[in-house]
């Protein structure tokens, strides 16, 4: 097989998966910035919102764009509910308590996903089967949808954080909640909004992922892997997730290409090795804020 064809197509798929991982990682980072905890419920927000789109479109014949929009609203609602019911009551408690609570929420959402899915296990979003050849690269409509949705959500969040008053206020809260409060910023509301926005980001990433992997309970596996991209970027970095996601996507695709003939399956597990290495050698990631505590 032509080497150029092989490399070009593997790189393109790595790019697609990289952007999806970046969008998934963004969901973790937005929450971490305001609550200093990893939201372990995110993988199930992804599954839950993906099923909402699938069930609405496949069984209630809601057009995909409308179903997607509704899933974003639902993602926002779930995020807000998690903040109100878990993060806020646990504020000031050890971070581990909040992480444990989000793990509990993971299982609650898993149950909700099974209810929403009407007992059906899997399905296709039914996107048109259109294929394109761009030079040596063979792409499908679902590739472009995944890239567009992931990139839009990442760019949107980055721009919001940099250039809008809301984003600047959110950054202020994430930097120093007490200081922000002293300047009259509504810290509680901004924290709640951050969780809600993280839910929207997760729902958007879920749609992109479902376009590439169909809708099934297994989508949570990719969201868990995206935590590696998040750690690599630094848990409080926003734009850094693009680098984290792309590194993960490229490592996984080229790793599988190289390793599968010798050690089948290892390439797909590289994300977990990345997590381990980052936590051991660079716990604040590539772009995260290194916090030094003086005693």
């Amino acid at each position, binding site marked *: *097989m032509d080497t150029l064809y*092989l490399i070009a*197509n*593997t790189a393109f*798929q790595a790019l*697609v998966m990289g952007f999806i991982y970046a969008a998934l990682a963004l969901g973790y980072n937005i929450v971490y910035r305001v609550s200093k905890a990893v939201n372990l419920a995110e993988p199930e927000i992804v599954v839950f919102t993906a099923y909402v789109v699938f069930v609405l479109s496949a*069984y209630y014949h809601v057009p995909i764009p409308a179903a997607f929009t509704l899933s974003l*609203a*639902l993602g*926002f*609602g*779930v995020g*807000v*509910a998690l903040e*109100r019911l878990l993060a806020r009551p646990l504020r000031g408690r050890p971070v581990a308590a909040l992480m444990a609570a989000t793990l509990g929420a993971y299982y609650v959402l*898993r149950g*909700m996903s*099974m*209810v*929403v899915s*009407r*007992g*059906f*296990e*899997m*399905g*296709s979003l039914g996107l048109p*089967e259109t*294929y394109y050849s761009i030079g040596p690269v*063979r792409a*499908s409509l*679902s*590739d472009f949808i995944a890239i567009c949705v992931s990139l839009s959500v990442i760019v949107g969040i980055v721009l919001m954080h940099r250039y809008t*008053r*809301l984003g600047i*206020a959110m950054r202020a809260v994430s930097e120093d909640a007490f200081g922000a409060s002293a300047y*009259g910023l*509504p810290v*509680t*509301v901004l924290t*709640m*909004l951050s969780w*809600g926005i993280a839910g929207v980001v997760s729902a958007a990433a879920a749609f992109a*992922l479902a376009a*590439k*992997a*169909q809708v*099934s*309970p*297994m989508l949570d*596996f*990719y969201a868990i892997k995206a935590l590696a991209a998040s750690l690599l970027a630094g848990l409080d970095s926003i734009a850094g997730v693009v680098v984290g996601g792309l590194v993960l996507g490229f490592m996984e*695709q080229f790793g*599988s*290409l190289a390793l*599968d*003939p010798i050690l*089948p*399956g290892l390439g*797909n597990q590289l994300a977990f090795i990345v997590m381990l290495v980052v936590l051991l050698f660079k716990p604040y990631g590539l772009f995260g804020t290194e916090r030094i505590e003086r005693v």
Partner: protein
Amino acid sequence: MVSKAVYAGIAILIIVLVVVAGLLMLRSQPSMHVSPTTTPTEAGVVAEKRVIRVPVGVLVDLSGPTSGVGRDYAKGVEAAFKYFNEKGVYTRDGVRVVFDYWVRDYAYNPTRAEEFYREFRDKYGVWAIIGWGTADTEKLSDSAARDHIVYISASYSAKLVVKPYNFFPAPDYSTQACAAVRWIASKKPGARLVLLYDHNAAYSRSPIPAIKAYAAKVGVNIVGDVHLPLKATEADAEKSIREAMAKNPDYLWCGNTIRSCALAVKAATKLGAKGMFVINVWGFDERFPELAGKGSYGRTAGVSPFRYPETVRDSEGYRMLVEAMKIAGYSDKDVGSMLRFAQGFLNVWLLVQAIERLDSTTLVKGKGAAIKQALESSCQGEPFDFGGLAPPARYCPGRHLAHTTVWIVVLGEDGRLHVEGPIEVTDFDCVKATLEAGG
């Protein structure tokens, strides 16, 4: 700065919407209960005359990597228990049998399966288990034999054929795969075949040694052995297909479950890969055309040791399935694949038929051991009949190979499923080939 009240208002509104939507969804769902059930009617019977309550554990995958085929199977199992409990099961001497059953979702995790097995055995004292996956069933087979618990699984692994307490109403994966190889050989002598499967999944690996051995015998050339993850994305599937394309195959064996195989066929269409896919029993069913898209038409076939229920609508078995669905409260829309539903139903039906061959004293005294003996009584006696949904099954002590009949279901250019066969491999012992290779 946006006012606090506006944010709070939006948040509360969305929370209310989520809760209302959740409640509405909950209301519209048929229940998937996990505790023993006794309907008022059954309770009445219990009060009137002697009833034997048979405790059964059910292990299913509703949330793991094989849930793509696991949920309809679980529905079939549960519907079967409701159906038989309502219709009435009687021992040979006329004593009513009622099933108490406990359903556990082990998410295809063998360690969790072991935990649930201990719960079934120690807490509920089950006599039989209706199980699921290959890795867990193989792992638990020795325990089941030691504890005298009949284990009827959805795994058709060759290794289970020789286990004393393991049964399934189908040929093992290896025998099924050999039939597929024979079919390939009949279509194109000397065909080039690439094997696509998850090299780390016991289920996917199970028939590979037999495929390789039988292919050599009938002149099919295995030209590639490619890893395709069970948890694949389109990107993973494309990588596997590109690797397969380099071998220029005429046929590709997909040994994973339906989600993974559908993605592989989709990827092949996208990349313009040639070759026909022949897919393992759990990788292909009525949903395949929709999942894999129009590109799969005319280039895909599935192996099946069962009749697709829709193709045998006049049979007694089909009528029972439909009635069981009604009793369980499922409409057509609640069951994605009737084949998977039927597979669950058949496993319970096998257990029921075995119990019907026993008298009440033997059943109560012997429990699982008695059920095993009843199943093995078919070796020289009457086979178990499945009302046209599957060929009659016989089990001999030391070799629980129900039968060797397999059909190939071809997805035609017209998007319809066409049944070819039956095919029986009688010139080669595929079970032995797998066992000897340690597969």
